[in-house]
């Protein structure tokens, strides 16, 4: 299943907050500098909802990514399980 590691710094908190609103995403705080966000289906984030500036939006997976990014425009990004790219 797709998973991202989110670096535990203020500029990436919107990712964690956004994921916590989703029942189908699991958010784990590791206490070692990363949050883990994973989903059984696809992971999807909205820039408008998170109010991320573009420079952060395009660097928000710097913590690490398990999966494949199938779409990524100015407002929406979708990550699916590896090998499930249509």
């Amino acid at each position, binding site marked *: 299943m797709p*998973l*991202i*590691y989110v*670096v*535990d*710094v*203020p*500029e990436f908190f919107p990712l964690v907050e956004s994921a916590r609103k989703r029942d189908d995403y699991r958010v784990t705080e*590791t206490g*070692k*500098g*990363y949050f*883990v966000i994973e989903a059984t289906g696809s992971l999807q984030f909205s820039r408008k909802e998170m109010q991320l*500036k573009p*420079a*952060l939006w395009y*660097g928000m*997976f*710097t*913590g*690490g*990514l*398990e999966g*494949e*990014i199938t779409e990524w425009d100015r407002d929406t990004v979708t990550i699916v399980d*590896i090998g499930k790219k249509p």
Partner: protein
Amino acid sequence: MTQEIPLTESDRNRTYATKREYRTRDVDVSELGTVAEDGVELRMHGVDHTARPTWKLRETVTFYRDILGLPLLHTISARGWGHPDHPDFLHFFFDAGKGATIAFFYYIGTDRPERYEPEDSHFYTATHTAWGVETREQLERWKETLESRGLVVSPYTRHEGLESIYFRDPNGYPVEISLRLRDVMEVDAQDAALTLQAAMELEDEANAEGTKIGDIDTIWRRKAALVGEFLGGK
């Protein structure tokens, strides 16, 4: 004009003739010692000066001194550096705060080589210096003041830990003014090490295959594996 003076044997033995290896020898890191080996830790203490060449003396002085308002602190004018091939020059320094200066070399009687022409490319603008301000109000003051003086300034750009504005000087050099939004933390350094470890591993693998790293996603996937290990097996 610098006179052409034939080199004597003793000239050839002087610094510029014989000790130029530091300028000419390629650096092969595999041949060099490391901190871990000798235990000697070297530390820097901020910026003394940055330096770039200019072929526009008046415009550069006007821009930095009169438009940006940075005091001119020092000018060196010299006949080469005692080296017969070195043009006569001016080397001048504008105050950039906290003891740092923005310096230029103006080489007398030379034309700007084509490769120093400014370009609208990421590779070109990657060589720049970001000068700090202390508050958001100061950053806004820079942008609003320079715009009111007629300069084209970028929108505010928020990065990880930094917010910046950008503009160009009369030479075409990019200048960045930055506000640090937070202190760098231990987690930043830990994460930086893992990101670069992932990228260096992939670079080594690509080099071995005569290819290049495909995209950032490839690095992020390798990074995830390293972070997973770092966290003790997720």
